[in-house]
């Protein structure tokens, strides 16, 4: 798939900011890279939260922008937290670290000018995932938009460490008469990236 096609498939791109020192960022990140993060996410109600593991595939789109394909696993705890209120409406009140989720997302990461050893970036895109709250037999499909940012610092010729935060806002279609429900989550992760080319 050409870079132009990938770029057209993505619905959002971080807003323009100060130009990156493009020669350096391309050499730093590389044409392609892979990465892995671990961290925590906060959800609540019908958005899963808990421990988070992410995998990334980066592909250069332009001097400043990289396609950032992400696979995310969220593993939280919690027991049953749904009930029927007096109007007989099914309601869920899960905590911020309850439930499980798996998601793939297509985002664009835009790098900005380096600040010392750190290179900040912004990230935006869209994902699709499955959410599950097993003790309530609640599950469904979630479609969140992602907005976030972070910093990247090279620690070796092809290795960098990355820390980032991400806000996910969207909606989910859930079973058990819940129907369309909002999804809102916040995640903080850190990990390493490895340049492939």
């Amino acid at each position, binding site marked *: 798939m050409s870079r132009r096609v990938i770029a057209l498939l993505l619905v959002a791109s971080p807003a323009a900011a100060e130009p990156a020192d493009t020669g350096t960022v391309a050499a730093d990140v590389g044409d392609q890279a892979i990465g892995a993060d671990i961290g925590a996410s906060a959800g609540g109600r019908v958005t899963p939260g808990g421990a988070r593991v992410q995998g990334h595939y980066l592909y250069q789109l332009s001097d400043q922008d990289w396609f950032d394909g992400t696979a995310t696993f969220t593993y939280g705890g919690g027991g049953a*937290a749904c009930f*029927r*209120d*007096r*109007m007989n409406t099914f309601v869920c*009140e899960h905590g911020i670290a309850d439930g499980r989720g798996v998601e793939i997302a297509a985002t664009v990461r835009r790098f900005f000018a380096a600040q010392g050893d750190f290179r900040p970036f912004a990230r935006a895109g869209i994902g699709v995932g499955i959410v599950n709250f097993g003790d309530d037999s609640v599950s469904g499909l979630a479609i969140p938009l992602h907005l976030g940012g972070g910093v990247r610092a090279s620690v070796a010729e092809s290795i960098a460490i990355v820390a980032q935060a991400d806000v996910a806002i969207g909606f989910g279609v859930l079973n058990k008469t819940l129907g369309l429900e909002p999804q809102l989550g916040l995640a903080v992760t850190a990990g390493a990236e490895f340049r492939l080319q």
Partner: protein
Amino acid sequence: MLALIGCQSDDVSRRLGARCDVTADCAQKCLTPSGDWPGGFCTTACTSDSDCGDSARCIDEDGGVCAFACVAAGDCTFLGSAYTCAQVDSHGGQAMVCRGG
């Protein structure tokens, strides 16, 4: 109407006040649908009022269960029109709680 729905969802929970048919619908215990508990009533076992929190009393039913405290029938409308404020036995005394009228 929206305010009423919001209030009801906020005031009841799996521990106290949610509708139920079976124990699994609740955090601990379901008083199954009946004239006393229209729609079913999730509750928890108790031995004294302190087990039930500020808004509930421990009553002599089913070995001791929590029920919403009330002063007048209007205090129970959030549970539905079938609920009223009634006097029941409570540890050798009496308590006013919401239950089926």
